[in-house]
């Protein structure tokens, strides 16, 4: 492996990492909002809306992100919905991530024992207070590991946006492999940059999981 080439590649990959991070951050943030909304709709079994959410979740979880992305980027403009590459990438990530976040948050909400709600109600709390002071704090702790795991998953999934010619890490690596034949260096940088991005989140994820599994409140 040639160090000079690695140094030469560094700024290219750094720039690409920014693209990967930008799309990831925007996608994850909106995914969390969509997930929050969908999980509450399902938790409260709001008629009609919860059925729509269910259909969305099934569609989202049972199709690959790459196909979702192609449909959004190449397909939708044909009916007049035409967005930039970046927007398409974020929308695709949210279409995928919203359902994963929703399931993670909902399983947290549902993990709270019904008697918790009942005792809160019997203390005279309003439905809002029950959620705010009793259900949500407990649900958040339960959901947290799954939410972090989803964040790792979504960052990884952004790698497919290179397929619509967005200059993310994957795209730069592919470009360099094709043009310069410095395959090893390009792949090395690719792996390193993904490690730098993903390792911290991934460690947080496993720590969170262990804490929730073995401890909980009061330890």
């Amino acid at each position, binding site marked *: 492996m040639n160090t000079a080439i690695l140094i030469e590649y560094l700024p290219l990959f750094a720039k690409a990492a920014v693209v990967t991070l930008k799309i990831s951050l925007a996608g994850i943030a909106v995914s969390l909002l969509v997930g929050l909304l969908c999980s509450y709709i399902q938790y409260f079994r709001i008629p009609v809306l919860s059925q729509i959410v269910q259909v969305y979740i099934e569609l989202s979880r049972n199709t690959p992100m790459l196909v979702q992305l192609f449909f959004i980027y190449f397909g939708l403009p044909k009916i007049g919905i035409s967005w930039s590459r970046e927007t398409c990438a974020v929308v695709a990530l949210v279409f995928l991530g919203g359902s994963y976040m929703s399931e993670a948050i909902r399983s947290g909400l549902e993990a709270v024992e019904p008697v918790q709600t009942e005792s809160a109600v*019997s203390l005279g*709390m309003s439905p809002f207070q029950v959620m705010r002071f009793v259900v949500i704090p407990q649900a958040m702790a339960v959901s947290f590991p799954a939410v972090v795991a989803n964040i790792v998953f979504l960052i990884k999934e952004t790698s497919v946006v290179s397929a619509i010619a967005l200059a993310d890490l994957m795209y730069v690596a592919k470009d360099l492999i094709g043009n310069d034949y410095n395959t090893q260096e390009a792949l090395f940088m690719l792996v390193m940059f993904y490690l730098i991005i993903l390792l911290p989140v991934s460690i947080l994820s496993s720590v969170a999981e262990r804490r929730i599994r073995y401890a909980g409140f009061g330890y």
Partner: protein
Amino acid sequence: MSNEIQLSVKDLVKSYEGTSEVLNGVSLDVHKGEVVVILGPSGCGKSTLLRCMNGLEAYQGGSITLNGELVTKDGKNMTALRQKIGMVFQSYDLFPHLTIEENVTLAPIRVQKRSKEEASKEARELLERVGLLDKKDVYPRQLSGGQKQRVAIVRALAMHPEVMLFDEVTAALDPEMVREVLDVMLGLAEQGMTMVIVTHEMNFARAAADRVVFIDQGTIVEEASPDEFFDHPKTDRAARFLKTFTFESKRTKG
């Protein structure tokens, strides 16, 4: 105990969708300061009756009133009404994410908008009374079952309820912890709290109750003073029920 009726159940009918009736026209008046113990076999509807009294379950017929105000699941003013009815459940009902003191003060502060200082002062007094003041800063997971139930009682008391409902509060406890919880309840009874208790502890029922109500298959079969009920049950069903709590040795001794 006075003659004033505090909680009144009239011709209560309750059924779950598609099943037979769980409660089949139950009527029961609870007087101020009275301790009513409800007994009956599993699935007779006694817990359901208690849950209806706190508006946790909707009912299909009849009425429940507290001081003349209607108690229904989705009724107006229910949050205000529920503050006057304290309830303690079988288990798992302390809030695991809050310390013991926070468990007790949450509703007084958030629901009744009392000041934090005042709420926490009262919480400490109440915890002291049940011997748990030293546990005020720990989390529920660190308490034994009996300690948790004592806190659950304190949490309900902190709302200054007029009536307390107890739904098999000792059923999930290890035998050696049952006593400490029942003692707290006996203490409350002596102070004149109006109480409705569902339990399987026969000796406790006899000691605490002003009146025993025996429910079977969704109706009140027998109502009597505890001594009368335990010594001379009037109905066959009550007699048979009481018999399940006694053992006769089949072995010949000696």
